[in-house]
């Protein structure tokens, strides 16, 4: 019994050293800060997977608008179908499948486009229209009031453009206008 106790005691000691070794090796390099997942809007190719791959029923990804990049166009290519039947705001002429993109008149000839977030499903249809033919001011972001910060974001795994990465939690958004300036 004594020999067994001694043996397990020394094994316990070496396992504790091993745990300490892991701790030391990892904390030693001081990069230990909290991270969250975020989309790099410049890498995103608007594939549409953000709407379907999130573990949440309604994706944590939403469209955001960098207003200071927007042209306030009357004929927004993120808002209207490429070939609308008539130029009015009827639902069949809108790109957004849920009517989450809201168009409001400011003054001639400017219109402002805002996102009604609860309706947005993050499908990137508007983003694609805006990026291909407009200023690219609409883009996707993971919204941290919804995201549960999975240990491995399942959209990141599915993203064909490798656009989703861990970012420092104290800088959790990558708005296009801000990223461009920096």
């Amino acid at each position, binding site marked *: 019994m004594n020999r067994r106790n001694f043996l*397990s*005691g020394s*094994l*316990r000691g070496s*396992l*504790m050293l091993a*745990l300490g070794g*892991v*701790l030391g090796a*990892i*904390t030693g*390099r*001081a*990069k*230990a*800060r*909290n*991270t969250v997942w975020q989309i790099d809007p*410049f*890498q995103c*190719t608007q*594939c549409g997977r953000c709407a379907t791959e999130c*573990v*949440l*029923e309604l994706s944590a990804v939403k469209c*955001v*608008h*960098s*207003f*200071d*990049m*927007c*042209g306030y*166009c009357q004929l927004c290519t993120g808002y209207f179908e490429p070939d609308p039947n008539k130029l009015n705001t009827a639902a069949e002429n809108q790109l957004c499948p849920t009517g989450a993109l809201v168009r409001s008149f*400011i*003054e*001639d000839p*400017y219109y*402002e486009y805002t996102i009604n977030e609860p309706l947005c499903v993050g499908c990137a249809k508007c983003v694609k229209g805006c*990026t291909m*033919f*407009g*200023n*690219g001011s609409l883009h996707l972001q993971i919204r*941290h009031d*919804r995201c*549960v*910060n*999975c*240990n*491995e974001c*399942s959209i990141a*795994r599915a993203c*064909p*453009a*490798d656009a989703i990465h861990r970012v420092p*939690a104290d800088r*959790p*958004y990558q708005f296009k206008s801000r990223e*461009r300036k920096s």
Partner: protein
Amino acid sequence: MPQVVAQRFPPPQFTETSHLLPVPTEPAVRALWLDYLDIGVLIAALVLVSWLVLRRRSRSGVVGVGIFSVLYFGFWRKGCICSIGSIQNLSQALFDSSFGVPLTVLAFGLVPLLFALFFGRTFCAAVCPHGALQDLVLLKPVKVPNWLDHSLRMLAWIYLGLAVVFAATGGGYIICQYDPFVPIFRLSGSLTMVLFGVSLLVVGIFVGRPYCRFLCPYGVLLGVAASVSKWRVRITPDTCTQCRLCEESCAFGAINKSAVDAPSQPRATDKRRLILLLVLLPVLIAGGIGLGGLAGGTLAGKHRIVNLAERLQLEESGAVQDTTDASAAFRAGNNSIETLYADARALHHRYVVAARWCGAWIGLVIGLKLLSLAIVRRRTDYEADQAHCLSCARCYRSCPQELQRLGLPVPETPKPANG
């Protein structure tokens, strides 16, 4: 490579109204103090369960903490981050020096192991939400035959090896991808994973904690730590009288029978079997290395970069005409295809090396398992197997000594079979 932003249309010049440009909102991330609260709750729960199991010897206390853990770490924290998954963050950090790990991950990964070194697997008893959930649905335990139990337990060791390989090479977190219970805690997830989780729970009504015993990679590490723990579950509070009443009380097959009245094998056969297995061990390891080398290429194909390089090679050679989203995205940015090929080659090599190690590991584990089965230990008491015991405290009240201690009626002691 950030593409230049197209400013096709000039910004608006408001003249009639003094409209101000709105700014997008930034909903805050989860507050840091909540992370620290999680660590505090983890440590408090570990201390409480260790006390309940080893000192109070209270099964109902363990169940109570288990319900709390399912609610707090499971449904409230949505199962993320958990100790099981943290193995991957830690492995990735060990192999990739640019990858940092926050305090929560370190705490969830290392503190339960430290506790296991002293108190056994009290984390599994009621702190881990995965284990606690399975423990709650276990209503009609049936016994898994020994040979099946031992073989299935090997799966967890293999799973651990593969998870480390993928995490260390940056190929993804398979423990998270195939986690059966997090979709249940979140009440959402892919249909396959929800079905997997639900069916494990249904099986778990009869088979004690199938995920813990046969799959959980963290349980493997906890088992190693617990096998040399300082204190441990003792079925009897006093001395074992060989009454055999506890024999079938463990739902997880973790009670080692006393060998007092087992017929002993002739020593010569024992020895021959042992020598045979000792010779077999290096053969198993070599075989594992060989198979690992073969499997490495396949595993590498799961990595995004290797996968993309293979696809681009097909497209370049004209074997396929169309493009995938990934290859189109790659071509849209101005990336160098040569660099990608070089990265993919380097990764391929890393995978083959890692898979060889993993193969050696699996060979070693199988060999040691066979050896440990062949060595007959002379036990004089009925004891809980330190590595496999989940500290659930179910067996305590099957011991008449314990009932006596508690002042409860003691059932008639049956005669030992061959006494």
